[in-house]
C-alpha cells in the first residue's frame, strides 16, 4: 500500500505543469510551492471533497439525534456547525505533511538553506484554501438547514473563514509533531484539541452576539488577533516540529 502511495505522489510531482523539481525549488520558493501544492490538491479531489462530505453528513445526523424541533436546532446551530468545522479540519490535518514525509520531499525542504517557515506557511495556506474556505462558504446553507436565525449567516461565514485559518495553522504544529508516528490520528486530536478551544469560544461567540442583536465586531477582532498571532508563530513551531520528526 505504501509503495502505491509513493508511486502516485512521485508521478504527481512528475506531471507538474512547469519545469521544476521539488528539490530544486529555490528561494523565494513560497509562490512556487504554493502553486505546486495547489496543483496537487486539485488533482487529489477526494482530499477536498471528503472533509466537506464529512461536515455535511455529521450535521445531518444532528437533527436525527437531537430531534427535529426547529426551536432547539436554531439555538444549537452555531455551536454545532463550529464543532463540526473543527472536527473536519482536524481530520484533514493528519495528511498535511504525510505524503511529503513518506516520499522524502519534506526532508528535501528541510535541507534547503532557507528557513522552513515559508514552505510550511504555503502548505497551511493551501490546506485552508481546500478545506476551511469551502467549509465557510458552505456554512450558510447548513445554517439554513438547522434553522439558524437570519442575522447569523454573515457572522457565521466570516468567523468560520477567520477561525478555520487559525485552526489550520495551529493544527499544522500537531501534524508536524506526529508525522513520524505510524497511527497519529487520535493522538493528534488529543494534543491539538485543547489549543483549538479559544478559537471555538470566540467563533461561536461571534454568531451568538449577532443573534442576540449586539455588535459582533469585538469577537471578530479577537479572532483576527488569534489568526495574526498564529500566522506569525505556528509555522515556526511547526518547522521546529518537522526537524524533530525527521530525526526520528
Amino acid at each position, binding site marked *: 500500500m505504501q509503495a502505491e502511495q509513493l508511486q502516485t505522489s512521485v508521478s504527481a510531482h512528475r506531471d507538474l505543469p512547469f519545469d521544476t523539481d521539488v528539490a530544486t525549488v529555490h528561494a523565494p520558493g513560497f509562490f512556487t510551492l504554493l502553486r505546486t501544492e495547489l496543483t496537487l490538491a486539485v488533482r487529489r479531489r477526494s482530499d477536498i471533497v471528503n472533509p466537506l462530505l464529512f461536515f455535511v453528513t455529521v450535521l445531518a445526523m444532528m437533527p436525527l439525534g437531537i430531534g427535529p424541533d426547529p426551536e432547539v436546532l436554531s439555538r444549537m446551530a452555531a455551536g454545532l456547525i463550529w464543532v463540526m468545522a473543527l472536527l473536519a479540519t482536524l481530520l484533514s490535518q493528519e495528511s498535511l505533511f504525510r505524503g511529503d514525509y513518506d516520499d522524502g520531499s519534506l526532508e528535501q525542504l528541510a535541507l534547503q538553506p532557507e528557513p522552513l517557515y515559508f514552505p510550511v506557511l504555503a502548505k497551511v495556506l493551501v490546506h485552508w484554501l481546500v478545506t476551511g474556505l469551502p467549509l465557510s462558504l458552505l456554512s450558510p446553507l447548513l445554517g439554513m438547514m438547522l434553522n439558524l436565525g437570519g442575522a447569523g449567516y454573515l457572522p457565521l461565514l466570516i468567523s468560520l473563514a477567520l477561525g478555520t485559518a487559525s485552526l489550520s495553522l495551529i493544527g499544522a*504544529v500537531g501534524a508536524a509533531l506526529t508525522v513520524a508516528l505510524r497511527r497519529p490520528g487520535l493522538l493528534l486530536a488529543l*494534543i491539538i484539541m*485543547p489549543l483549538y478551544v479559544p478559537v471555538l469560544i470566540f467563533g461561536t461567540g461571534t454568531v451568538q452576539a449577532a443573534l442576540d442583536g449586539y455588535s459582533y465586531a469585538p469577537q471578530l477582532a479577537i479572532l483576527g488577533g488569534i489568526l495574526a498571532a498564529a500566522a506569525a508563530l505556528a509555522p515556526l513551531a511547526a518547522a521546529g516540529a518537522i526537524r524533530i520528526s525527521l530525526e526520528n
Partner: protein
Amino acid sequence: MSWQWFHRLGSPRWFYQKSAAWLPWLGVASLILLVIGAVWGLGFAPQDAKQGNSYRIIYIHVPAAFLALAGYYIMAICGAIGLIWKMKLSFVVMRAAAPIGAALTFVALFTGAVWGKPTWGTYWVWDARITSMLILFFLYLGVMALSGAFSREQSGDKASALLALVGTVNIPIIYKSVDWWFTLHQPATLKLTQASTIDPSMFYPLITMIAGFYLFFAWVLTMHTRTLVLQRESRTQWVRELLQPPAAKA
C-alpha cells in the same frame, strides 16, 4: 562565575548521587508544613462569615491549583532548557513533572467541584476559570501521550517539549480568566503586589499549606526524576554497579 555546576547539573549520574541527600530534608519539611497547615486551617482557623465551614477546602484547593500551574511552568521551562542546551536531565525532569502536575490539576478540579456544590449549588459549571483549568488538564495529558508515542526516546523528549512550549499560551489565559470574564468563580484573593483580601487568621495557614505543597511537589518530582534516570541509564555501568549487589559481581 564558574559554570561548572551548570554543566554538572546536566549529568543524570551526578543528579542521582546528589539528590539522595536532598530527599529526607524535602520529605520531612513538606510533611511538617502540610500537617501544621492542615491542622491549623481545618481545625483552628475561624469560620467564614458567609460560607461557614465549607470554605476550609481552600486549604487543599488553592495550593493544588497553584501547583497545577507552577507544574506546567516547570515542565515547559525544563523542556525549553532541554531544547536549547540539549541537556539530558532537563528532559527527564520535564517528563517527571507532567504526571504530578496533571494529578494536582485533577485535585484542583475535584476539590473545586466539591466546594462548588455547597456554595454555588452545582458541581460543575462552564465558567472561564474552571474550563481553562480543564484545558490545562488536557494539555498535560497531551504532553504525556506525545512523549510516550515515539519509539526513539530523544524524539519523544523534543516533541513533547515543543508541545509543552506551545501550550504555555493557555497559562496567562487561566491566570487572568477570573478578571477578564466575570463569571461564577471569584476573582483572585491572594495578590502579590497589593494587600490580600483575606483575613490574616485564614491567610497564614493557607500560606503554610502553599509552601508545604511546593515542597511536596519538589519532593515527589525529585523521587520521580530519580526513578526515570535509573530507567533511562539502565544500560550504563554506574547503574549496573549500583543495582547489583557486590557479591553477585564476582
